[in-house]
C-alpha cells in the first residue's frame, strides 16, 4: 500500500519527425515524373488530332516561341520589343513591390485588428468585402484615379495582397497562448515585451502562411493588372498574343507565369523553414 497519490507516470517522449524511407521518396518522385510525361503525351495527342495551332499549339511551336522571344531576330527584339525574361522581370518587379506594400499594410492592419477590439469590429467587414472582390473589379476604379501607368497596377496588387495577411495576422495575434504569456509575465515581462517576445513569434508561422497566400494572390492578379498598357510585362505579352491569335505565345506566357510562381513559392517555403524552425512546436 502506498501513500502516494501519484498518477501513473506519463511518458514525455517528444514527437520527432520520422524520416521517410528513401524508397518511398523515390516512388513519389517517379510518380510525379510519370504524371508530367502523361500530361505531355496528352497535350501532343490533342495538338496532333485537332491539327489547329490556333486552338492547341504543339509543344514544338511553344518551344520555338521560347527561342524567338528570348532572342533578337530580323532586328526584332523578343516579343513587342522586349525579351521574354524582360517581360517576366517587369512583372516580377510589380509583384514584388505590390506584395511588399500589401504585406506591410496587412501586417499593421492585422496587428491593430488583433489587439484593438473596436477596430476589428469596424474593419473586419471591409476587409472581408475587399477580399471577396475580384481584383479586376476595382482595377477600373484605379485606372480612373491613377491613369494607366505603373501606379494603378501597384495599387491593384497591393490591395489584392493586403487582406490575406491582415486576416491571418489578426487571427494569429488573437490566439496568443495564455500559458506562455503567463510564463513571460511571471519572469517580469512588460506588456510590450510580452507582445514582442511571445505574441509575435507565436503568430509568425500563421502570418507567414498569410504572406504566401498574398504573394499567390498578387501573382494571379498581375495578369489582370497588365490587361491595360501591360507591355512590357508577362500579362501584357499574353494579352497581346491573344489579340493576334498567337496561341503558342499565350501558352509560353502561361508556362512562364506558372513556373516562376512555383519557384517563388519554393523560395518562400525555404525561407519559412529557415526563419521559423519552431513551426508546429508551439
Amino acid at each position: 500500500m502506498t501513500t502516494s497519490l501519484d498518477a501513473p507516470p506519463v511518458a514525455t517522449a517528444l514527437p520527432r519527425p520520422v524520416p521517410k524511407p528513401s524508397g518511398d521518396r523515390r516512388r513519389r518522385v517517379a510518380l510525379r515524373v510519370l504524371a508530367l510525361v502523361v500530361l505531355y503525351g496528352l497535350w501532343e495527342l490533342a495538338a496532333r488530332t485537332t491539327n489547329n495551332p490556333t486552338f492547341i499549339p504543339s509543344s514544338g511551336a511553344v518551344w520555338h516561341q521560347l527561342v524567338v522571344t528570348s532572342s533578337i531576330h530580323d532586328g526584332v527584339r523578343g516579343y513587342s520589343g522586349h525579351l521574354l525574361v524582360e517581360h517576366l522581370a517587369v512583372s516580377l518587379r510589380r509583384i514584388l513591390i505590390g506584395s511588399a506594400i500589401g504585406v506591410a499594410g496587412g501586417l499593421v492592419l492585422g496587428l491593430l485588428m488583433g489587439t484593438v477590439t473596436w477596430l476589428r469590429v469596424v474593419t473586419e467587414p471591409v476587409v472581408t468585402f475587399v477580399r471577396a472582390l475580384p481584383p479586376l473589379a476595382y482595377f477600373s476604379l484605379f485606372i480612373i484615379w491613377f491613369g494607366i501607368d505603373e501606379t494603378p497596377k501597384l495599387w491593384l496588387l497591393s490591395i489584392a495582397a493586403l487582406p490575406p495577411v491582415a486576416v491571418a495576422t489578426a487571427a494569429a495575434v488573437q490566439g496568443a497562448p495564455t500559458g506562455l504569456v503567463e510564463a513571460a509575465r511571471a519572469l517580469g515581462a512588460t506588456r510590450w515585451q510580452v507582445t514582442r517576445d511571445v505574441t509575435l513569434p507565436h503568430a509568425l508561422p500563421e502570418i507567414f502562411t498569410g504572406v504566401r497566400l498574398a504573394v499567390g494572390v498578387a501573382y494571379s492578379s498581375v495578369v489582370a493588372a497588365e490587361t491595360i498598357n501591360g507591355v512590357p510585362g508577362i500579362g501584357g505579352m499574353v494579352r497581346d498574343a491573344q489579340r493576334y491569335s498567337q496561341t503558342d505565345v499565350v501558352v509560353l506566357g502561361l508556362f512562364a507565369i506558372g513556373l516562376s510562381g512555383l519557384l517563388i513559392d519554393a523560395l518562400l517555403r525555404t525561407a519559412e523553414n529557415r526563419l521559423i524552425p519552431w513551426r508546429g512546436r508551439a
Partner: protein
Amino acid sequence: MSSADPASPGDAVALSGVEHRYGDVTAVGPVDLTVPGGEFLVLVGASGCGKSTLLRLIAGFEQPTSGSVRTAGTPSPEPRSGGGGLSAPVPGRGAGLVFQQPRLFPWRSVGGNVALALRYAGLPATPDRVNQLLERVGLHDVAKRRTWQISGGQQQRVAIARALAVENPLLLLDEPFAALDALTRERLQEDLRRVSHETGRTCVFVTHSVDEAVFLGSRVIVLTPRPGRIALDLPIDLPRAGLAPDELRGLPRFAALRAEIGAAVRSRSQEVPA
C-alpha cells in the same frame, strides 16, 4: 489592511483571511498562513482542493475575493516599512514561478530562454551566466539546443533555471514534476532539494504526492478539498542536508511523517465524492 498584521520581519509570505470564489463556488479559504523566509513549504491535497489557486494568489495572477495576500521581495524604491516589508504580489516581481508544463518559448534556444529571463530582470545575459544557471540545475552543453530537442525532464530543469535567473527571494512551483516519469521525477526532486538548500530561497511547492511533500518540504500543509482550507500544518523534522535520498527515505521518521500526512490527505478527500 496592515492593522491586523500577523506578519513579522523575515516573513516571505503572509495570507490573512484569504478567500477565493469562482462564481458561487468557494475554491479557497478562508486561509491564514505565514511563511518565514528560507522555508520550503509544500502544499498537499487531492485534485481540485484549490492548492494551485492558492499558489496563483501568492504569485499575484489571481486576486483574493476577500482577505489579503502579501509577499516579500516586490522590489520597491521606498525603504521597507513595518509589517515585515510585505506588499501585494505583482506577477514577475518578487517571485519566480515554475508551472506543471515547462512553458518554454520554442522560438528561442534553451540558453535563449534563460537569457530572456535575465534580460527581463535587468541583469546582464552573458553566455557564462546562462551556462552557470543551466549547470546549477544539472544541465551541460544544452544552451544551443532547440527546446524540443531535449527531454521533458530537461525542459523542466530549464524552466527551473529560468525561474532562478531572476534573483527573487521567493520560488513558487505548481506541480512541476507531475508530468514526468518516476525516475526523472526522483532525480529532479533531489536536485531541487539541493538547489533550494544552496540558494536558501523560500519555496512554496504544490503537489498531490505525499512522498514528494515529505522529501522536499521543511513544512507540509494539507489542504481540504473545496473549499481549500488548512487541515494539517506539520513541520518536517528531518535533516535538510547530509543524507543521500535513499538514506532519507529509509528513515523511520520519514515513513511516519508520510503515513501521517497520507492519512490526512485521504480522510479529507473522502469528503468529496469522486
